[in-house]
């Protein structure tokens, strides 16, 4: 193995260890599971009510039927849960650490700083959203009635992972912006606000917003494309665009992160 390969497997092992410790930490507080579950159920109740209201006045929305939109809602909830489990807590911690001058502690460790800051926190119980979203998705698929083949399922998981990577890159860029901007507390509100747009397929939005939600904030790849995969709407062009954009975002976000890092001069330590 070359030295580069060594580093890569090292990064994976490091991430796995950190995630395991994070999960063990969270599992100590079991009552939080029920609190999170209630919250997930209330959130999905909100979404379902909104959907019911929409479909009390119409039969289809921008070419999507009710069960199809229900599938989108399921994916939206699942992806939201995954983001809040691993991506958001870590990226917010970067923002806080930069402001407080505590990022030094991560930077002085003998591992890739980007890997390290991306795996320090796990909000394990946020996975309740993934469970609830999955249930909604399954109900939707049963209502649609078409059988989902193993191939569809594999494609779904594949594009879902690609979508999550784009969201991670996007959050990394947001977090890196904190090297320039001091007060970023509101960045989470910003993301949460924009994320809500993903509960409908981006195709229903007017052009400027559709492209914004595809290339600026990549919700299309994280939610709409996987939803298309399970509702038999996915085109190969969409997969190709998603793949190319993801590669571009990985490269760009890493470059942006390192540029920000060069600006950082810690105040503590």
């Amino acid at each position: 193995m070359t030295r580069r390969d060594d580093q890569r497997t090292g990064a994976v092992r490091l991430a796995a260890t950190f995630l395991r410790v994070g999960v063990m930490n969270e599992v100590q507080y079991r009552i939080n599971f029920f609190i999170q579950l209630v919250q997930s159920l209330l959130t999905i109740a909100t979404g379902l009510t909104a959907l019911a209201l929409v479909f009390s006045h119409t039969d289809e929305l921008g070419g999507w039927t009710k069960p199809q939109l229900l599938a989108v809602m399921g994916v939206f909830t699942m992806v939201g849960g995954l983001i809040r489990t691993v991506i958001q807590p870590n990226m917010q911690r970067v923002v806080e650490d930069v402001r407080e001058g505590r990022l030094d502690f991560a930077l002085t460790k003998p591992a890739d700083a980007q890997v390290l800051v991306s795996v320090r926190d796990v909000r394990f119980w946020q996975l309740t959203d993934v469970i609830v979203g999955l249930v909604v998705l399954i109900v939707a698929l049963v209502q649609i009635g078409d059988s989902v083949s193993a191939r569809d399922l594999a494609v779904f998981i594949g594009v879902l992972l690609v979508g999550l990577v784009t969201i991670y890159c996007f959050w990394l860029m947001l977090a890196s912006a904190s090297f320039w901007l001091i007060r970023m507390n509101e960045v989470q509100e910003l993301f949460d606000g924009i994320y809500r747009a993903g509960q409908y397929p981006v195709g229903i939005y007017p052009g400027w917003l559709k492209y914004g939600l595809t290339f600026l904030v990549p919700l299309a790849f994280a939610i709409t494309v996987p939803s298309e995969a399970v509702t038999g709407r996915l085109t190969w062009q969409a997969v190709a665009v998603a793949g190319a954009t993801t590669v571009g975002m990985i490269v760009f976000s890493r470059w942006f992160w390192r540029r920000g890092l060069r600006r950082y001069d810690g105040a503590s330590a």
Partner: protein
Amino acid sequence: MTVSPNGSLGAESKTHAMGSMYLTLMRTSIISQFQYRAAAYFYMIGMVVEPVIYLIVWSTIARSHGGEVAGFTPGTFAAYYIVWMLVRNVNIVFTPFGWEWRIKEGNFASQLLKPVHPIHYDLAEFAGGKLVVIILWLPIALALSLIFHPSLHPSLLQCGVFFLAIWGAYLIRSLVLWALGLITFWTTRVSALYEAYFLAELLLSGRLVPMQLMPRWAQTLSWAFPFRWTFAFPITALTGPISERELLEGLAMQALWIGVGTIVVMLVWRRAVARFSSVGG
């Protein structure tokens, strides 16, 4: 520091002192909000998305049904949700979730030493922030108007009532959420309760959709809660359709809920503070 002004001042100078305290707190809050304009804009952009989604979804439905759904056209939906944004922003008050932090940090203890009821600090600080919010909202509203073409033709009376109603809504929401937040003095496992409260508010206030699009039973149910007077009423006061009678009724209902809220806050506060103990702060 002089001694507590409570006993030594007459009623008139007391009101005067309270007035100047409000002005000072509001000014400080305006300055600090302006200090962090970028943060304030981040916050507002996040908030723009919610009404824009509703607006696009409902305009799409209206267009696919011959241009109208339950009396709303894309233009009146646009007016509703653009005004919605301002009302929503004015409606933001100290969150009940914040009480846990206040109590945990123990810095609330110093508030108790001051001779004025602590709710006045929240009311003044958040009210000051609203002036910044309104200024920041104007360009966003202008941009959205150019995109979505709202049809908005308020009368002079409607404008006047709207101006009063947004502050009425602000007071109702401040009082009710303050009272709700005080539950934290008894138990900290309240987040699920708050979430349920906000869900009920979302559905019964006119925040998700205008009241006219809700099922009948939900519209009737909404009369039992303060919610509709904090969203649907101020918005509809400006956008219409609304009769003069409904305008005045709305203000009266707001006054009623402000009264109820004040009484509840006073009663709960007295009990809550009796339970409070803290070290340091």
